[in-house]
């Protein structure tokens, strides 16, 4: 396993009390594999990723338990100095909003080149040449001229390509992409996802794709982890989950999206709202919204039951859900 997260717990201290954002998350990614982490806002998907990357703000955040094993090494035990060497060189992150992730007063060439001057000790001139190469590689037309331009002079899709170029610069083993195409139009989204998948294949990187879009997941993922209220509620190979979900929340999500290929009648809507993380419901956190909930769901927290060797579901009644 390239990366393995084990029983991770993260909380935030807020004025309203302690918000338990991540409550025992475990997942793993192999080299060359794409894991999609699916969840709505507040499910803990981004906080988990920030913890893996080592960019979680502490305080207000606090890691209260768990391990993040990268090639067998627990990153949470490393000193900040050692951590910084891992970040960028061994694992890199792509953010949703490219415009606010890039420095507006530096040229893109300077920002791309910085990867090489800081991590590889290259001269500015060599770093500039590498920046042009990278921009070519992510297919930005006229790289030689555009390397001198500032982020605002690029379109949204081109800026996201620059973010990808920056993440790829040192050929890391793992990429974490947090909603990389959410801010883009569909035709541009298709271009960017294709580019990302191609580079991943070439470099055999592990990819963690954080998203709320069930369509994007179906397109690119090998495995899925569905998160709800800071827990993984279902994990499975991508084909299995769309065929027959083993958790009522996953089922609800799949039913509630309108389809492109037929008109459909009334949409199924999961009732209620995602929980407030300072007051997570007892037992199964999904029980107040679940159509299958029974007494045991209100009292006992479901473990991640093994559905089959590569599948897990945190539902006491996963068999019923599969058969439904």
């Amino acid at each position, binding site marked *: 396993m390239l990366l393995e997260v084990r029983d991770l717990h993260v909380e935030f201290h807020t004025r309203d009390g302690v918000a338990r954002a991540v409550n025992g998350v475990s997942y793993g990614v192999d080299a060359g594999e794409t894991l999609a982490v699916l969840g*709505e*806002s507040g499910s803990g998907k981004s906080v988990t990723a920030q913890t893996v990357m080592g960019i979680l703000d502490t305080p207000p955040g606090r890691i209260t338990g768990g391990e993040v094993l990268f090639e067998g090494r627990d990153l949470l035990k490393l000193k900040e100095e050692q951590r910084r060497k891992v970040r960028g060189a061994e694992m890199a992150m792509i953010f949703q909003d490219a415009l606010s992730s890039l420095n507006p007063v530096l040229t893109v060439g300077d920002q791309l080149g910085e990867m090489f001057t800081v991590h590889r000790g290259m001269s500015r001139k060599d770093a500039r040449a590498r920046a042009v190469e990278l921009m070519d590689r992510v297919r930005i*037309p006229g790289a030689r001229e555009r390397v001198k331009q500032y982020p605002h002079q690029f*379109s*949204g*899709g*081109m800026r996201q390509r620059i973010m990808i170029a920056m993440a790829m610069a040192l050929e890391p083993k793992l990429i974490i992409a947090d909603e990389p195409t959410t801010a883009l*139009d*569909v*035709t*541009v*989204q*298709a*271009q960017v*996802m*294709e580019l990302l998948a191609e580079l991943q294949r070439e470099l055999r990187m592990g990819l963690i794709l954080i998203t*709320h*879009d*069930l*369509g*994007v*997941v*179906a*397109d690119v*993922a090998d495995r899925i982890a569905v998160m709800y209220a800071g827990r993984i509620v279902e994990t499975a190979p*991508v*084909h299995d989950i*769309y*065929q*027959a*979900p083993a958790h*009522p929340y996953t*089922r*609800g*999500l*799949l*039913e*509630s*999206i*309108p*389809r*492109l*290929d*037929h*008109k*459909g009648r*009334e*949409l*199924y*809507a*999961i*009732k209620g*709202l*995602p929980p407030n993380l300072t007051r997570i419901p007892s037992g199964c956190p999904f029980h107040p919204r679940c*159509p*299958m909930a029974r007494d045991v769901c209100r009292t006992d927290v479901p473990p991640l039951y093994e559905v089959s060797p590569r599948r897990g579901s945190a539902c006491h009644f996963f068999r*019923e*859900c599969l058969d*439904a």
Partner: protein
Amino acid sequence: MPEPILEVRGLVKHYPLTRGILLRKQIGAVKAVDGVDFHLDRGETLGIVGESGCGKSTVAKMLVNLERPTAGEIRYKGEDITRLSGKALKAVRRNIQMVFQDPYTSLNPRMTVGDIIGEAYDIHPEAAPKGDRRRRVRELLDVVGLNPEYLNRYPHQFSGGQRQRIGIARGLALRPEIIVADEPVSALDVSVQAQVINLLDRLQKEFDLSYVFIAHDLSIVRHISDRVGVMYLGRIVETGTDTEIYDHPTHPYTQALLSAVPVPDPEAREDRERIILAGDVPSPTNIPSGCRFRTRCWKARERCALEVPALAVPAAFRDEGGPAAHDSACHFAEEKRVVPAEGSGGHGGGPG
């Protein structure tokens, strides 16, 4: 044929680009909307889709008179409302209301929910007598699925989905006939999105509303619309019923757009053809000659640079009839199915 409730002809909105401070000289224009025609029948939903910058939101603003068109007509029950002012305009505006995209910035944080919804009655006092207003507001909250006792709360006490319901209640306050909804669910989470879409569906039947539904999400537009118009760079390039557009598209831009939408079905991954468009949308200050899509079109030929294609049923389909015979602004229109056929695998069945 009954008269459409709303008819738009040759709608244009250009924002001038000027240079100089004292002697302002116009040096060009942002052609946000550049000749749009459509109609809306009573009780139907017209979906308008397009990517950012195509002008769909500017069309919405002109429909509710938040922007004045540069040229063109907007006929409401036969009367051109772009020329109205004063009392006559106010009377018309009562009947065309808007629901906005962002439920966070479109509600005044310093007003209570009761005041936000009730403000409509201050502007149009004839709509409800003074003593009756609170009762009306309570009723509206109930209609959109909120507790009527929330009347005195402030917007920050609500979630995104609940705020969007408040925005919808405000849109309904004056009992309009037309609602223009600009991306009403794109800021919401998937599970909440479905709740709001179902609410809009229910309200349409209950109050006999006509919707202009503007969105970039093609799946949602298909779900809610009877007819769909696809916009590109300030113009509608193809329009028809939902089946005509989604299952029998003839314009290359519509085909590219549909083929790029990820379908939540991993089985469709391998055998689905993707049309990946080259490059970016041209700037609306400098629209290409002839067909405005030609710079990104894989079919473009000389004729496309010279002749602007009209939005009409293409000659090739005119005699044939059938679902491919609908308005498409392309010289070389061809039918091409890009959305996988219904039921080609994937997930079905009802919730557990």
